[in-house]
């Protein structure tokens, strides 16, 4: 992995963030709401409104407003929320932390289930177990998160009262209770990911099982266990890195809905609140943070891939 490759990768991330910033800023500027009215309310005096407009720079041309916002971002100033009149950054980043916890736990759970499931289905290809796994996956990718969440709520929280329905408890306060509140949200987010990733893992594993080198290994008389562990595993897992990176996008989308349903104060929930209350700075900040998370996740996956697969020469 050369420095040139890293530099190019970094440039790509920066370009991505630039385009996202333009897109987000452009779209939100189309919002018909007058930011000043949103801030001060319908009954504010014209003078107060004018003062606010001046302060927020709303009379400036669009590109200037964009420039102000962007330069603020680069200095760490994410603006002031129009809803709470507090700086956006601290709240957003705290919320991000909670979402990362939810997302991270979902990712880990998903990997723990999807990878073995996919490989097992590949090994039992065509048999009953594979077909059942396939059917379950099919169902998994056809259920939107809000459906899964709601169904889980009905069955687990309502009927059987096994787990709390909604709410969030910080791990610092009470770890056990925190975990209990996390179970349903994590399950919901993971389901669609497990369905998707396990199918991909299955297909990759089948390719590896049918490859010439696995056949050569078998014909060398190596025991099935050795063939599986030494020859199949690594080659089947390699593409999983890329698949997971792509799924971070689905994850982030799913988190929005799940946090809304389960009342978890993460960045998804914050975004919904910001959108419904037309809080422009928060919307912009939240969208940028999400896009940045995705871009960073993908870059990390690329680096991991290059480190693990010696065939690739990113020169």
């Amino acid at each position, binding site marked *: 992995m050369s420095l040139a490759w890293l530099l190019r990768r970094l440039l790509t991330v920066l370009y991505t963030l630039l385009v996202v910033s333009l897109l987000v800023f452009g779209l939100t500027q189309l919002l018909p709401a007058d930011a000043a009215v949103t801030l001060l309310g319908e009954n504010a005096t014209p003078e107060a409104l004018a003062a606010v407009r001046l302060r927020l720079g709303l009379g400036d041309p669009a590109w200037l407003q964009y420039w102000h916002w962007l330069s603020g971002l680069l200095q760490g100033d994410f603006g002031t929320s129009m809803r709470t009149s507090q700086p956006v950054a601290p709240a957003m980043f705290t919320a991000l932390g909670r979402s990362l916890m939810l997302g991270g736990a979902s990712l880990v759970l998903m990997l723990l289930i999807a990878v073995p499931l996919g490989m097992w289905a590949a090994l039992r290809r065509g048999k009953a177990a594979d077909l059942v796994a396939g059917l379950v996956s099919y169902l998994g990718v056809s259920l939107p998160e809000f459906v899964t969440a709601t169904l889980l709520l009905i069955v687990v929280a309502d009927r059987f009262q096994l787990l709390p329905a909604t709410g969030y408890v910080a791990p610092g306060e009470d770890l056990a209770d925190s975990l209990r509140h996390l179970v349903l949200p994590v399950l919901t987010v993971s389901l669609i990911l497990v369905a998707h990733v396990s199918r991909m893992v299955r297909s990759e594993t089948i390719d590896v099982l049918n490859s010439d*080198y696995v056949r*050569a290994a078998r014909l060398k*008389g190596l025991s099935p266990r050795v063939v599986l562990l030494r020859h199949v595993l690594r080659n089947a897992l390699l593409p999983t890195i890329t698949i997971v990176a792509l799924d971070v996008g689905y994850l982030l989308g799913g988190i929005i809905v799940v946090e809304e349903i389960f009342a978890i104060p993460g960045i998804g929930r914050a975004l919904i609140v910001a959108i419904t209350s037309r809080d422009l700075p928060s919307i912009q900040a939240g969208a940028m943070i999400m896009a940045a998370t995705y871009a960073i996740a993908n870059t990390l996956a690329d680096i991991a891939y290059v480190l693990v697969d010696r065939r690739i020469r990113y020169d």
Partner: protein
Amino acid sequence: MSPVLQVRDYALDYVTRDGTQRVLQDISLAIEAGEVLGLVGESGSGKTSLAWAIMRHLPGNAREAPGGRIHLGGTDLVAASSKALETIRGRRMSMVFQDPSTALNPTLTIGRQVSEVLVRHRGLSEKEAWRAATEALEHVDLRDAAGLMKRYPHQASGGEKQRVVIATAFACRPELIVFDEPTTALDVITGARILELFGRLRAETGVAALYISHDLALVSRVADRVAILERGRIVEEAPADRIFTAPTQDYTRRLVAAVPRPDHRLVGDQVTGETLLRAEAIAVRYGRKRLFRAAPAAATEDVTLDIRRGEILGVVGESGSGKSSIARALTGLADYDGVITLGGRRIDRTGGMDRAYRRAVQIVFQHPDSSLNPRQTVADILARPLRLYGGDVSTVPALLEQVRLPAGHARRYPHQLSGGEKQRVAIARAFAARPALVICDEITAPLDVSVQASVVELLLGLRDTHGTAYLFITHDLNLVRQIAHRIVVMRAGAIVDLLDIDAVRQGNVSPYTRQLMAASPAPVG
């Protein structure tokens, strides 16, 4: 002495969605210790299935007919349990595969893949096995064996990888080795070296070998006895020197006749006429300088050649020699530096190729599967050049007849045709324009040898009728020597030789060409 491998009355079926297909029938053969049996068959003959049957690695839908027997020494392989087979494979019998780049695991070191056999079957410790493996690699003439052990397959060349595979196969001193077309995926010269290695190892170890190939000429040089497989049956078996000189069966006779023999000229005339096309100082370069990356090396440098009217100019070279790049430059598929002159007009860029040029210079590609648009019927495919160059669309049936295809094929789609038939359609498409020059870019490489012979016959017949010139690109030097008037030999993007066929016959060639000639010997007899 009992044979090392004995197959008796073996039959094999594959069960598919369309019914049961019998792939092998009445197979009986025996190989003694130290003996090499060559198994020759075209595609669909079942030769690969026989290899899997012997190695006991058949696909899930294979059904063996009862009564067939396969014995390795005293062991009944058909009845052997999978646990028993694990101890037999790699130790008493092993296999060398066709494509070394896919037969080695890309994420394991070469050393690991060689030593694991030794650990498994010879009970050596990891360290001992590593040392023994290094010695095995040295024994197959690999330089810097110790360093190679630590490297990964993609860091070795095709020839090196095949030596590794061979070393692995020989490592436990097996009684039998099955070779599945081990040189097909390699360059001619590299392949010849591998065969030399094989000869040496075989003499040293006295191993029994089954050498499978589609190349009758090659097998007759390598094997002691040759068995000919046609559609699942062994039609003839004879000592190698007799199979060419005195074949007894029709099929064998046809195969023998189809094998290109340099001394057997198919073209009788001389061509001394005017120059049709002249290419000067052609340089083709792919890719451009990108951000943080250097520009790639040129595919061809300063290539100059000319083709006379009605001439067959053969272009020979190994992969990477640049011969296909010349074809691309001449047809405007790749940008080039240099000048092409056709009929007095000088063309120095692909943009300068007008309709008259395009009509005069046509190309037939290597892969029949991708050269015909799968969504167009044969009629559509042939009608287009006719419309484009002012021909008559109603002559499509006549075109098909010229390439010896039934007129009814016009309504078919490419996937309904065989490889040979698709290639004929591609040829018909080229001739629809009544070109002066047809570039044949390795068009017979993917075909069976008998199909290749008929396609060559077709091309020569068309030349007799229309007086077309050919630029015949191939890696098969023997084939080119049968049909070309002059031969161009290319290496690493440059022309090494541009010779008259007589010069080649007399041996007035450069050292590289001599190497090529030695690596593609004429068949025995």
